[in-house]
């Protein structure tokens, strides 16, 4: 089987599979091929789609590979189903950002960092499956701890959490912190309360 055909087969499978496809899963489907060859085929496909300025791009998202429409054409594609697309409130975005960077994190910690009650917004992000409960924190009161979900990665087109700019990189956008040597924020002492019913 030539490398060209393998690439073509991989493209067929990516096209039919509508979720992000991991290399592991691809290797289990195409078990007669070498993993290295599969990876090479994926890399080549990513490059080809990028170079030719196609209407489709191959992206790495949520630990897998997924074909998606080219972002620049969003305005046209949205006409298909006349949706305006997702829109987040500032509080939802803030909460998502805090959980993404500080997970696992309790609700009280999120509220301390945001400075406002966040029960409602966290509940709604859980319902949208963008946050998930990771378990309980091993401190008195056993508060629930939260993290971001696979759906979060898919929605924001992230390969994994490491793809987010680091807080340090973000920090460089703002002036240096003279208090940087001081101890971390006293999150542990923040009191826990259950989410509102």
């Amino acid at each position: 089987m030539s490398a060209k055909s393998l690439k073509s087969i991989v493209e067929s499978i990516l096209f039919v599979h509508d979720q992000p496809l991991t290399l592991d899963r691809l290797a289990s489907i195409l078990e007669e091929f070498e993993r290295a060859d599969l990876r090479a085929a994926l890399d080549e496909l990513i490059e080809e789609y990028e170079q030719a300025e196609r209407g489709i791009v191959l992206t790495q998202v949520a630990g897998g590979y997924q074909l998606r429409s080219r972002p620049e054409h969003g305005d046209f594609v949205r006409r298909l189903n006349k949706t305006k697309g997702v829109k987040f409130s500032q509080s939802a975005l803030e909460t998502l950002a805090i959980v993404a960077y500080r997970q696992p994190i309790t609700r009280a910690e999120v509220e301390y960092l945001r400075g406002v009650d966040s029960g409602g917004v966290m509940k709604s992000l859980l319902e949208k499956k963008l946050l998930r409960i990771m378990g309980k924190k091993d401190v008195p009161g056993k508060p629930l701890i939260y993290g971001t979900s696979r759906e979060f990665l898919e929605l924001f087109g992230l390969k994994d959490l490491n793809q987010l700019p680091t807080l340090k990189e973000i920090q460089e956008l703002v002036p240096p912190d003279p208090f940087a040597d001081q101890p971390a924020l006293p999150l542990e002492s923040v009191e826990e309360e259950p989410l509102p019913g």
Partner: protein
Amino acid sequence: MEEMQSNLFSDALDQAYRVRIEEFEGPLDLLLHLIKKNEVDIYNIPIAAITRQYLDYMEIMKELNLDIAGEFLVMAATLLQIKSRMLLPATPEEDGEAEIEDPRAELVRRLLEYQRYRDASQLLNCRNLLGREVFARKFDAPEFDELEPVEEPADVELFELIEAFQKVLARVSVDTFHDVVADGISIADRIGEVLSVLHVEKTVSFDALFTTGMTRDLLVVTFLSILELCKLKLIKVVQTENRGAIWLHLAAKEEEEGETPEAGDEVAAEEATPTA
């Protein structure tokens, strides 16, 4: 001309003012706004001035009858406390600690940290969002479900059937679930009906057996009949693709031997009776 410009300017200001008040996510957001507006150094906040402006904003909110969240009040108290501590002479503490932390330090740390997450949230929002800028393919379009199964459909597991039935219950309007006594159809009767439909149609979609207007009891009886037919291996339940439409057809064995479909019906009905 100048007058017009100044009018425009104050209108714009007015509007910005109103919108901003409602936009504040919380006290930290408001404080960052005040620091930026006053063009002061975040590491050397003129606490008296900022506190005064902060309290002014709360006054405006009150006048506009906006609900002032408790957090705003807590922050006001914190600011006043920092202000009063700033007025104290810088004498060593009783516990002999050489360095006294700037009373503003924790607030500044919180503000910087909050600002970082706020920046991070803006970066998140600038990404190409699935469903906003980018789209993936989806396969659950209703028209697709109408297609008949082609080549090597997979067998359906019981839980998938159950899920399909849950969807049926969700689809069929709750209004039709009136407490009317069932029309007395038994599972055995319904098995016979389903089989006769299959002998004519060969392949029937799962959903097609549940039509709007059926009583809840009939829906349940139909579902139990399908389960029973599966158990008796008289029908095969298949799915064209992962999570796709579910189809029923007569089991191969039954088809081969089933030159006399009526006989098949009787067998099914008899065997099913005890369970019904």
